[in-house]
């Protein structure tokens, strides 16, 4: 049956079984391939998206369960101030190697910073522990999150 999903501010319709994970509706039916398939069992975080701002695994989110919640994917990340700062920090620090997991890393990091603008190192580790980077760019992911977190504090001083 058709499901109406609000994705990155636009309403999209998907005609698929309700138990279909959001990941596959995005990738196969809607042509939004930024959200990545890594494990299919919620263990790697590559498919992380936001539902009303909270990080969830799209491979474990049936489309029938989304309802009116707003879906944000990597394609919409740059529209938020936090997301844009993270994208810039990711590039400034040259975080990635293969880059495949980075959409999920960015979505987890942005959910963290939205909730906790200046997280402590342990908070970052805890919030990011669900995201595997097989290239193990963890050192730079940490640094980039710090970088993105510190920026609004500096802006606030001037503002």
């Amino acid at each position, binding site marked *: 049956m058709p499901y109406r999903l609000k994705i990155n501010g636009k309403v999209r319709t998907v005609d*698929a*079984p309700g138990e*279909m*994970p959001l990941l*596959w509706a995005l*990738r*196969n039916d809607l*042509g*939004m*391939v*930024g*959200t*990545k*398939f*890594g*494990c*299919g*069992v919620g*263990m*790697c975080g*590559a498919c992380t998206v936001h539902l009303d701002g909270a990080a969830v695994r799209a491979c474990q989110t049936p489309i029938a369960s989304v309802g009116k919640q707003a879906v944000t*994917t*990597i*394609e919409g*990340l*740059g529209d938020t101030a936090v997301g844009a700062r*993270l*994208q810039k920090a*990711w*590039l*400034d620090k*040259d*975080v*990635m*190697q*293969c*880059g*495949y*997991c*980075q*959409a999920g890393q*960015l979505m987890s990091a942005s959910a963290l910073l939205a909730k906790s603008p200046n997280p402590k190192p342990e908070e*970052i*580790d*805890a919030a*990011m*522990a*669900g*995201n*595997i*980077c*097989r*290239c*193990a*760019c*963890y*050192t*730079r*992911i*940490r640094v980039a999150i710090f970088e993105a977190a510190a920026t609004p504090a500096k802006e606030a001083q001037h503002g």
Partner: protein
Amino acid sequence: MVDVALAETRLANGRLDRRTLFKVSALAGGGMAFSAAIPLAAEPGAAAPKLLNAFVSIGSDDRVTIVAKNPEVGQGIKTMLPMLIAEELDVSWDQVDIRQADANAKLYGMQVAGGSFATPTHWLPMRQTGAAARAMLVEAAAQLWSVPAASLKTSAGKVLDPASGRSISYGKLADRAATLPPPAPATLKLKDAKDFTIIGQFKGGVDSPRIVRGEPIFGIDTRLPGMVYAVYERAPVHGARLVSANLDEALKQPGVKQAFVLKGSDDPQALIDGVAILGTNWWLVNKAREKLQVQWDTGEWGNHATARYASEAVSMLDKGPAATPRNDGDVNAALASAAKQVTADYSYPFIAHVPMEPQNCTALYTADGKLELWAPTQLPQPGMDSCAKTLGIPAENITLHITRMGGGFGRRLMNDFMVQAAAIAKRVPGTPVQLLWSREDDVRSDFFRPAGWHRLRAGLDAEGKLIAYENHIATFSRKGKVAQSAGMNGSEFPAGLVSNFRVGQSMMETMVPTGPLRAPSSNALAYVNQCFLDEVAAAGGTDLATLMFRILGEPRQLPGAGGRAFHTGRARGVIEKVLAMSGYPKASAPGRGKGLGFYFSHAGYFAEVVEASVSNDGEVTAHKVWVAGDVGSQIINPAGAINQVQGSVIDGIGQALALAITLDDGKINQSNFHEYPLPRMPVTPDIQVEFVRTDYPPTGLGEPALPPVVPALINAVHAATGKRVRALPIDAAMLKRV
């Protein structure tokens, strides 16, 4: 079958033919394209292949397009090779656009992501390519202004005339330059390192801006009009053959369009038997697999198990080596005369590659017998050859687009997924098919790093000098030959440095596919060698660093594996450096220990120190890691270089802490990340990296930083607890305080 070892040997010598030829052609719409014959390294004495290549074009808008020839797997090659060209072309990095090459051996030579050999084999020819283009632009300006070319200079994409103060951009010279004869390579003068403006600078990955925006860029992101998705059900036991399949129920499932059986061979690198299901949505077709009823004949392989391999290995070690790839002096006599003897058994498991992007390939076969592939492959050419053979079409009918890859680590040197996609596509001519494996397919259908079992014996004389060393490996064969990436060659450290030295090898047959995993062989042998030598050092009343210095002796060059010579002075240099960085062996806090590991692989010298502690329940924490590496005179892109090293360190620590693939009844026991726990952010230690610069041409960094971290960690565990971990992964129960 891809013979990676042979390919590595051929390329590893790093001998570059200087008879580089250039030709040039005008581009439609203005601009020019330079073609250069970039000879690949060849065995000394062998004729270098002459291959025509086109790498540089310049538009009238001053945009410079540089072709990146090799597959990008996260090693940073798509940024690094164009940096070499851009440097000598003398353009600003900001004006450069990078274009990924398709697979084309005639134009680009060997295109491979593996073996850490892109740096040594391209360091000279890529710069020559840029310098040739620059020389033609200078000549064009000289003609335009009627001045001698030698009086002109270049900078940031412009030709400058210091005498008059004039300048002109490359874009305005491109048309004229394209009509000029190519320069003789002998006339090309390359820059001094002190004049580099791009090489040595921190350059971010060229694809990264697209990646942070979630744009389609990986193989799995390929979308074509009318494309269908496919899964491929294969036997749960490696080597099993398909007997029969009932597809009726699967065909009734939602989203399923087609299902059919494909019969292949028992060669896991080619097409294996299986059932393809095609449909409109991958999740739906993958779900339909549950409804398949397939009969498999597991043959003799159904009773294979890792426990059985382990016991067979021990009996082979007890029996003594079946073969001795190297036997210097008289090990037994020297051991008998030794003041101290040390013996220990070490072992390590099969491990998997699990790149984050599951294996996939998109294929379009058309009725005229042509095949187009969008393939995340580290080694396209053998995959195309294999597709040609399997489909019965000429290789020249195949076009392959190399996509960016979500990791490889050696897994994508094997092109089984490509052949499967091609074989499926042939059954639906005109319809593009994207074959995608589940993570479970990927874990179970890997070409695993082979497990190994070793017995080591060493003897020290009364002065503590190493006088005998034996390393006997029990390893795997396939159809009677050493299984891929298994076994050990005669140049294993400390070959040539101890007069009584023996490498022994015994083999048992397996059907489990094996293959190169990042730093193949070295990723396991470094652990065995450096942990055992740590034991030997302790038996002699000293530490590993001191013993290593004694073994290495005076600086000199020894022949190494695959034509890669081993220099004892460079080894010593990185060990000295890491000692100074880390303060080894003194730990920074009670309960902690520092361990050292050194290894030479892929032409790189790495010494690493880990500081670790062990909790009461046996959990190991790596707190800090110091890395000293020598990969020659120049770090081309520090951004990528340090990332590679830090990633390698965490990768190795993750392997030692938790990773193992096991089998029972011929089936792989692990299926997904809950059973194959890769390292995550919380285990990431502080990692300090320094490079020791030596006067040698630069070599690659994708692999050599990984092997030494494993023994460094295990030796740190010993320093902290007094316990030797002689089997990987670390067994916390063994380290528990009772």
